[in-house]
């Protein structure tokens, strides 16, 4: 287990470094970052001054090393637009995005797992078809459009929920549903497929032969084994969801990190964008790392080697 953890940790660190290099090089993709900051009407001497001020005249790798060592200390530089440290800017907004992510994945799991189990218990019946219908709908529905439809129905027509803002818990209901519904179909399908496979296993027959009730067979004996891959998928989906929060937050004007990312991209505020790409990647890396550990722990064949 220790060797496994270390190996997995090493991979996570390497991936993080590569992603950081890629997100840092974004700055240089447009060509000269100094003239981009200076704006179109700046004189050549202004651009030179900015180049010197930001250190763009140094070799690329030196700049990267500099940026990375600062980033490790939590310093992502100054936001071009807000003229304040990026780290402060992000710290403020991140809690909203994380809350949204936790709500979204909980919503997805709480709907997808029971639905997947029910569908597997009664394959090819009404409930199975309904579950399949819901998941097919979810995969084809653009989430930004789904969000708008919810706003039209629940905010404009019924006037039940606020269409935008991030003041109270009511603001989180629709974003949670939209984000959760995005992750739900995959989790539902995997739960159903996993349960169907596990339900054919010999140890399920053993549990029935002991006289265990169907509920006990399903939830104690089958789900426990079917849930292992679902944990991995949920972690991956959680990472994708945080990355996708940019769409949802912009629709509902929820002032989280995703919204900040959208604003910063539109304002060409590259240090903020770089930092956000790195942070969202880091979330994904940490979640998948933790889920691998959870998987190893859930499966005694790995845990007790």
């Amino acid at each position, binding site marked *: 287990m220790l060797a496994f953890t270390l190996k997995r940790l090493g991979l996570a660190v390497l991936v993080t470094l590569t992603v950081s290099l890629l997100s840092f090089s974004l700055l240089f993709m447009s060509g000269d970052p100094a003239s981009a900051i200076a704006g179109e009407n700046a004189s050549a001497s202004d651009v030179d001054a900015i180049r010197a001020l930001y250190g763009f005249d140094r070799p690329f790798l030196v700049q990267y090393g500099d940026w990375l060592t600062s980033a490790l200390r939590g310093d992502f530089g100054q936001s071009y637009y807000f003229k304040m440290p990026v780290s402060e800017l992000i710290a403020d907004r991140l809690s909203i995005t994380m809350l949204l992510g936790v709500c979204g994945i909980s919503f997805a799991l709480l709907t997808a797992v029971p639905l997947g189990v029910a569908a597997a218990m009664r394959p090819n019946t009404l409930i199975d078809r309904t579950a399949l219908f819901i998941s097919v709908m979810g995969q084809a529905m653009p989430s930004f459009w789904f969000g708008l439809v919810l706003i039209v129905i629940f905010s404009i027509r019924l006037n039940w929920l606020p269409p935008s803002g991030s003041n109270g818990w009511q603001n989180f209901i629709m974003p949670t549903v939209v984000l959760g519904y995005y992750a739900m179909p995959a989790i539902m399908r995997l739960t159903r497929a996993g349960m169907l496979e596990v339900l054919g296993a010999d140890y399920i027959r053993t*549990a029935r032969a002991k006289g*265990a009730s169907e509920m006990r067979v399903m939830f104690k004996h089958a789900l426990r084994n079917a849930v292992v891959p679902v944990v991995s998928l949920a972690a991956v989906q959680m990472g994708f969801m945080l990355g996708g929060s940019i769409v949802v937050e912009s629709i509902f004007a929820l002032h989280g990190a995703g919204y900040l990312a959208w604003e910063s991209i539109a304002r060409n505020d590259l240090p903020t964008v770089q930092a956000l790409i790195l942070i969202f990647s880091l979330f994904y890396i940490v979640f998948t790392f933790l889920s691998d550990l959870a998987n190893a722990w859930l499966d005694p064949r790995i845990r007790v080697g």
Partner: protein
Amino acid sequence: MSDPILSVHDLTIDIPMGQGTMHAVRGIGFDLKRGETLCIVGESGSGKSLTSLAIMGLLPKNLKRAASRLEFARIDLQHQKPRQMRDLRGNRMAMIFQEPMTSLNPAYTIGDQLEEAYLLHNKTGRAEARARAVALLGKVGITAAESRLSQYPHQLSGGLRQRVMIAMALMCAPELIIADEPTTALDVTIQAQILRLLADLQREMNMAMILVTHDLGVVARIADKVAVMYAGEVVEQGTAQEIFRHPRHPYTRGLLRCIPVPGKTKPGEHLGSIPGIVPSLIGRMEGCAFRTRCDVAEAACASAVPERHTETGHAWRCIHENEGHENEGRVPA
């Protein structure tokens, strides 16, 4: 007291398939008393395992079971609610499966799974279940039982796992135990140990036992009664003595000819074999299913087959009496 604990009459099992119905088990029957061992013998696909699952009420839902009588301890199993069946399963009737490697849940410890078998049917504390588990593990010959409880299935060998499965089946001291080819997946040396263990426990706990096997050597050692199945039917049944000394059905004779006997079978001598293949069981069945492979078959075999029996209860399904054919000493040692 001489009431049978298990009474099966005219049991049929149908499997609906895309191309028609497969009549996997057709009108089989037997009675079993407390303390008796019935061995069901036959090739794979002859319906042995389905029969045992049908008794336990564990057939997959799409299979159809019917019988004129299916009673366990005078309880009509055909009219039990699912809840009542659960109270019987694992409690008064238990089952041991063929595949010890996959029959234990990989996610729980041996202890968890043993205790569960007890706690499902006894309203007692965990401690008592644990004590019972330790005692039974000892009984099935597992040393250091206490420490085994916290181990996971993947940490045990196949032989040990099957011992655990046996212990699990015995947790509630059942009156009937059904063992479905409990040793096929194990090494030959382990097979003998497990069978001896089962036979000893059966005698000690005075259980009725059904042992499904295709190993006639095993049958000869532990069976009181034998039922020979072929293509979903019991073609011959009787006491072990009768079946081995005076086999009446051509199929039983064929099976017995296939067994080498130490000291009598010469090295290099051709062992018997039964040519041909088992017929398809899909669609309407008529006549003797064995007739295509039988060396004494006649045209009449294609229509009805009479069931013949002696006063002692030795029964077989064949148009011939097949008297006088003594088995040439091929009772396996």
